[in-house]
């Protein structure tokens, strides 16, 4: 399984990263320097990836100790994904350049595109859990930077993106810890996590990480904000392409890494997947616009990918990953294009939109149907059927939008789900506001606790000591008779001590 030792995998990461650094230090006067840099970096990565066709390469170095090795592997299984990442980055960059939608002045944006590609490539190739985590989580900074380039009000969204990633990625760290401890190894293609309680938790929590990265529910809320506030190329690149690639890539490793997991853990993952599909389907029905439909469809396909997580491996998943990434990227870019020029609708953009919508729906159906075909238990069957229903909703959503566009009126969903739909439309099933409120409440409680402790020191102890010292002061009021009394009392005490000892 191990391949030839080569530095090429490392270069696949370094080339975009170095170009990214170059773009950052580029003086602002160089026009389009960022765009050129992105092209150069992505092309360089693509060339390097292509040169590894048909080979199995490996780059491993001792790194942070204690099993945390810097280990990258490039083989026919993940090479297509790596190539897809580079290609999609080029596509996004090209679109950005052609449509004029890219933030021309933002070196940070362009550099972040390259950093994101570098990190995504690293995550795809990593063969050590901590190395993978390193690249996976390292996308926070570029994501933040890219959303920020969207303007003055974009900070709320960039913060939300980081918080969302914070929740899922930090839980994943816990999961990685459980898994690697149970398996006594951190090497992805060599480890086998036993189906113990700890191993199952590892499975579940790592799945949570993947769910978060893919943008499945409940980690999808920020997508809506980002589609408004972030520059359009961001959507196409990150949630549309890179996130889907690396999320799916991780999920595809699960059957190899985990020697089964408790049925409870598996069930929860299935619920997450199926729930995402059906809720996303409902969201797509009331989308009412290209961007929102794009998000809903992407979330739906993310859910479908999660559904497949526990059993599909290798080639099939890689194929699904590439299709979904291409579909996602295309959905976001075309949706943004379509919503931008509301008048003269570009036929190319519409075509691209509906084709990718179709692909996304296809992926969704595939996931649901596959799960049905697997038929592990009646519970999984029910969930898969639910997912199927969700896929159908998604279709309805797409057709609804087509009809709306044609008839010029607001799309009416084919299925009326009453209150549930209304609730969903209102909240989008986004736990973010509730989570914020919860943490705010917790903050108040903590401040109260801390203030109470401070009160103890500042007021309580001070008062007590002052009280005691006040007693002493009162006893020394200068009256001689009192002093003589003290002496008598003292004499009594000393006599008592003598008598008793």
């Amino acid at each position: 399984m191990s391949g030839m030792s080569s530095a090429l995998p490392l270069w696949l990461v370094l080339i975009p990263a170095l170009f990214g650094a170059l773009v950052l230090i580029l003086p602002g006067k160089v026009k389009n320097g960022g765009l050129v840099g992105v092209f150069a970096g992505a092309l360089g990565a693509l060339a390097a990836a292509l040169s590894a066709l048909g080979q199995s390469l490996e780059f491993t170095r001792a790194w942070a100790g204690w099993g945390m090795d810097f280990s990258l592997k490039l083989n026919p299984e993940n090479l297509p994904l790596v190539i897809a990442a580079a290609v999609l980055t080029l596509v996004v960059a090209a679109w950005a350049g052609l449509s004029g939608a890219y933030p021309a002045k933002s070196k940070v944006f362009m550099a972040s595109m390259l950093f994101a590609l570098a990190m995504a490539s690293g995550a795809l190739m990593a063969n050590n859990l901590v190395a993978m985590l390193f690249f996976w989580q390292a996308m926070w900074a570029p994501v933040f930077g890219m959303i920020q380039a969207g303007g003055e009000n974009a900070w709320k969204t960039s913060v939300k993106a980081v918080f969302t990633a914070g929740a899922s990625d930090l839980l994943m760290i816990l999961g990685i810890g459980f898994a690697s401890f149970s398996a006594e190894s951190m090497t992805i293609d060599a480890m086998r996590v036993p189906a113990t309680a700890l191993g199952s938790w590892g499975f579940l929590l790592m799945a949570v990480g993947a769910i978060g990265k893919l943008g499945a529910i409940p980690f999808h809320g920020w997508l809506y904000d980002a589609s408004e506030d972030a520059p359009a190329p961001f959507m196409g690149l990150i949630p549309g392409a890179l996130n889907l690639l690396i999320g799916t890539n991780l999920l595809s490793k699960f059957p190899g890494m985990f020697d089964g997991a408790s049925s409870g853990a598996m069930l929860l993952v299935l619920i997450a997947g199926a729930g995402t599909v059906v809720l996303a389907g409902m969201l797509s029905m009331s989308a009412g616009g290209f961007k929102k439909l794009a998000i809903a469809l992407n979330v739906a396909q993310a859910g479908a990918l999660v559904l497949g997580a526990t059993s599909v491996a290798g080639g099939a998943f890689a194929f699904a990953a590439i299709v979904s990434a291409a579909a996602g990227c295309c959905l976001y870019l075309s949706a943004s294009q379509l919503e931008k020029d509301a008048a003269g609708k570009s036929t190319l953009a519409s075509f691209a939109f509906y084709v990718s919508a179709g692909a996304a729906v296809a992926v969704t159906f595939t996931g649901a149907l596959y799960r049905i075909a697997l038929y592990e238990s009646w519970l999984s069957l029910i969930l898969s059927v639910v997912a199927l229903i969700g896929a159908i909703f998604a279709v309805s959503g797409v057709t609804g939008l087509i009809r709306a566009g044609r008839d010029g009126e607001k799309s009416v969903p084919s299925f009326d789900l009453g209150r549930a739909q209304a609730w969903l439309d209102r909240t989008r099933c986004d736990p973010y506001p509730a989570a914020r409120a919860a943490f705010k409440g917790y903050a108040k409680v903590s401040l109260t606790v801390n203030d109470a402790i401070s009160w103890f020191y500042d007021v309580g102890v001070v008062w007590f000591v002052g009280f005691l010292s006040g007693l002493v002061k009162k006893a020394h009021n200068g009256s001689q008779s009192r002093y003589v009394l003290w002496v008598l009392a003292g004499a009594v005490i000393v006599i008592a001590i003598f008598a008793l000892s």
Partner: protein
Amino acid sequence: MTGPTLLLLVVFVPLVGACTLPLIGKISAKVRNALAFVFVAIPFGLLISMLPVALSGAPYSFDILLPLGMSFGFHADGLAVFMAMISSFLGLIIVVYSFGYLGHYDNQNEYYFYVVLFLGAMMGITLTTNLIFLYVFWEISALACWRLIGFFREKEYVRRANKAFLITGGGALVMLAGFLMIYFQHGTMDLLLLRGKEISNTAVLLILFGILSKSATLPLHSWLADAGVAPTPATALLHAAVLVKIGVYVYARLFVMTFHIDAFWNTAVPVIAAVSALASAGAAIGENDIKRIVAYSTVSQIGFIFLGLSIGGEAALAGGLMYILMHAISKAGLFLCAGIVEHSLHTKDIRKMGGLIKTMPWTAASFFLCAFSVMGVPPFGGFFSKDMVIHGAIEAGHPWIAAVFVLGAVMTVLYLMRAFYRVFLGASHVEHPAHEGRGTMEYSVVLLAALSIVSGLFIYYPASLVQAIVSQMAVIIK
């Protein structure tokens, strides 16, 4: 130069040199500043040169036995040199920052005296071989802390300085009782002679009072948030980088490296640390004073360090030591950035800030980078330390404690992002116009931000160092 001479120089150059600073300062401020830098640079340089020997089997050491269980000596093993190097290095950066920050304030002689004295005491704490002398240097650091917190002499500031002195001093007295308990149990207080000895739980508890008070752990942490009234570089030195690390270092020195303590503490201390980490993280989410936020963050992060050092197992221990390094760099950076903002705006209230990224881009970027390191985001150094501590806890057999700390890590992201966006992003509520930091102040924070990222990208080097230290410790513990 012989080993003992080197050791004496490392400790006494800053201690004695500090005493000359007020006198020289009367003649020339520039010479005094330069000397302050030199007096800290010398130990740092010497320590670097000592590192290879420290990691070998025969570190530089000397020990003169005295009556009543006392002894005077220094022992520069890997752990000691590691801690001393971090402290002196950050001391250097902070001294340089001070040149810009203190510009026109009064009492500068006193400031430099106490800062250099403090660093000398820190060298003493790390290298000493005897519990009593540990106490001696510990209290010298408390004295410096007192004078530096109350530096601006407002009534409220002096009250807070007194509070810090009393809490840490009281804790230290209880700790001294613990030391004496050890003396009466084993007949000596010499750390080299006491290696491998067992001590009672009562002694451990008493000593923990000192450790927890110095390292600001709930419920003895109340003084740290209040101490933000010190001049910013002093705050960074004392409350981020060095003073609060005294407690965790002494924990490692005593309870990991020297004594055998009951396994009960492998759970009890992490639990205390967890409560402290969570409660202070919550407070940091709610606070509106930038320095208090960062101070509560320090209390919280110290919890992580305690987790690593106390839960048992080499991986966690390595994580704890790595955390000391990464946290010192990034947290100092955060405080110094906060200082630049405060220096420019004359306020610490984040509700009166906002949008500062436009006028202070370098400070904003530095704050961002340091914050991400504290949050534990790759590719910054903090990622590795946080990861190692959490995974180390799992490996030590405490997955649930690890889970609690992950919750703490999530909250770290919350409060630091909140601080960042309230200060630097969004709409501006600023009353004065703000300007970017000047001169040495700005260079210092940029350097620390750069170190945060470089330490992560080149993690191999700090990790190898920590590995070597842990191996050395493991040999001795066994």
